[in-house]
């Protein structure tokens, strides 16, 4: 019983991180129908900013989180401005190639600056509580709470605020939106800032739970979160959350039942099968209800 609860907790922690990264993919896709393949690398940037803020600057946790999220948001906006905006009218495939290129660029830039894996020091006191054999760490609690908070905030922004409304309108018809007096460039920049900011926050959460980071960490985790977003229904915010938790669960269960080298194989197989039956993802609908 305790073992099962323990695994459930692990699932929740891992799923939370995937969910927050997946939100970044789904935001950008939902608004622009662009898959930002560099998003996994923005997540990595977030983890490195977290490392700098913690190991070099010794900032308190809340500030670390803000530095990572805001810093990554700025990088995300720069990527949009420099790499994607010039290609906005170009064929979609060009934008996708650019996204892949930006990802490789960010990885190698980081590699040039800091090639070795880094150990991120503790950001909050790592306390464990024991409930009838179930160990709950303060880090797991914080990761899960943070992700819930971030998801609720995003859901609120998109559904209830004027900027969220403009994002939804943009996803419907980018040509007509300027006729409302809305600056499309500003809304797209904001979308990237939020998406990348979530990547940066996820980077911090990851570094807290799994404190060894390296320039290539964003590739595999980015792919997984992307798949989580697709499984949930890309473009759909609640779908991204659901997809993240499903992926966390599948991975954790696969590692419990089989040798851990099978983990990704099993997880991806199940997700691919799921997509055969739900090609638009679990909550995804063709076209209409985006973001």
């Amino acid at each position, binding site marked *: 019983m305790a073992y099962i609860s323990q695994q459930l907790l692990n699932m929740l922690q891992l799923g939370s991180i995937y969910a927050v990264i997946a939100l970044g993919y789904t935001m950008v896709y939902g608004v622009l129908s662009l898959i930002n393949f560099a998003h996994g690398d923005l997540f990595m940037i977030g983890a490195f900013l977290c490392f700098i803020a913690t190991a070099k600057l010794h900032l308190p946790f809340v500030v670390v989180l803000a530095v990572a999220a805001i810093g990554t948001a700025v990088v995300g906006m720069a990527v949009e401005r420099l790499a994607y905006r010039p290609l906005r009218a170009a064929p979609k495939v060009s934008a996708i190639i650019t996204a892949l290129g930006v990802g490789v660029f960010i990885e190698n830039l980081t590699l040039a600056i800091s090639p070795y894996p880094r150990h991120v020091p503790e950001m909050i006191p790592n306390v464990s509580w024991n409930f009838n054999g179930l160990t709950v760490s303060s880090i797991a609690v914080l990761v899960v709470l943070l992700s819930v908070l971030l998801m609720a905030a995003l859901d609120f922004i998109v559904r209830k605020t*004027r900027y969220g*409304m*403009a994002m*939804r*309108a943009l*996803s*419907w*018809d980018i*040509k*007509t939106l*300027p*006729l*409302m*007096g*809305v*600056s*499309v460039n500003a809304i797209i920049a904001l979308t990237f800032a939020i998406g990348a900011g979530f990547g940066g926050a996820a980077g911090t959460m990851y570094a807290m739970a799994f404190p060894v980071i390296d320039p290539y960490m964003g590739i595999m985790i980015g792919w997984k979160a992307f798949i989580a977003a697709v499984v949930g229904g890309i473009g759909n915010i609640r779908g991204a959350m659901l997809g993240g938790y499903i992926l966390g669960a599948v991975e954790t269960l696969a590692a419990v039942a089989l040798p851990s080298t099978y983990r990704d194989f099993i997880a991806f197989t199940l997700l691919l099968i799921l997509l055969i039956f739900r090609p638009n993802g679990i909550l995804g609908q063709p076209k*209409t*209800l*985006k973001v």
Partner: protein
Amino acid sequence: MPPTMLSIENLTVSYGTIRAVRGITFKVQKGQIAALIGANGAGKSSLLRAISGMVKYGGEVKFNGTNIKGMAADKIVALGITHIPEGRGIFGNLTVKENLTLGAWLRRNDPEGVRKDYEHVLGLFPRLGQRLGQLSGTLSGGEQQMLAIGRALMSKGDLILLDEPSMGLSPVLADEIFRIIDEINRAGVTILLVEQNAFMALQLADGGFVMENGQLTLEGAASELLTDPRVRQAYLGV
């Protein structure tokens, strides 16, 4: 003679090698309804898109004396030009209320005025009031046209560019929409109306222009155009 609000000079619009608008010059006076009539593909919508900054163009466009060429579309809205595009441009994934709110995007500092205009729009179109929380993609064509006009009023522009408001509407609904366009104009808004329904448009308008193959072929007072044999033959079917 009322002052000139919109002045178009030698305007050209091209899509690749296709020249949709081939050198058009005309003026719209403040307070008027100007009707731009012509067949499908004559370049009427392209002309409106040029004025509102949706497409690049050659020539000059001046609004209240200011050259607006090259300005971003959202900045042009801020000057007071509201464009209701072809197909109405409703955001189908937003509710009716959200569409109206979006129309007032630039009026953040005028919540009192926005609230008044909101009440005014719901007074003009009571059917929108019954559907505020509904996704606007589920509205009928007539309701969508009402929403498009209502949303345009929310931006409180001085000039409304209106593209084919009668398209796809029953004659009764089209009459209703035209009556409201007249009412909006009486309240002081200048209107450039693009229509295929030449008879309705010219009956409502002060001045008219006929466009063919990207060029103006006729212009004059609407009452004169209504009796002009060339217009009667080509567009009024008599």
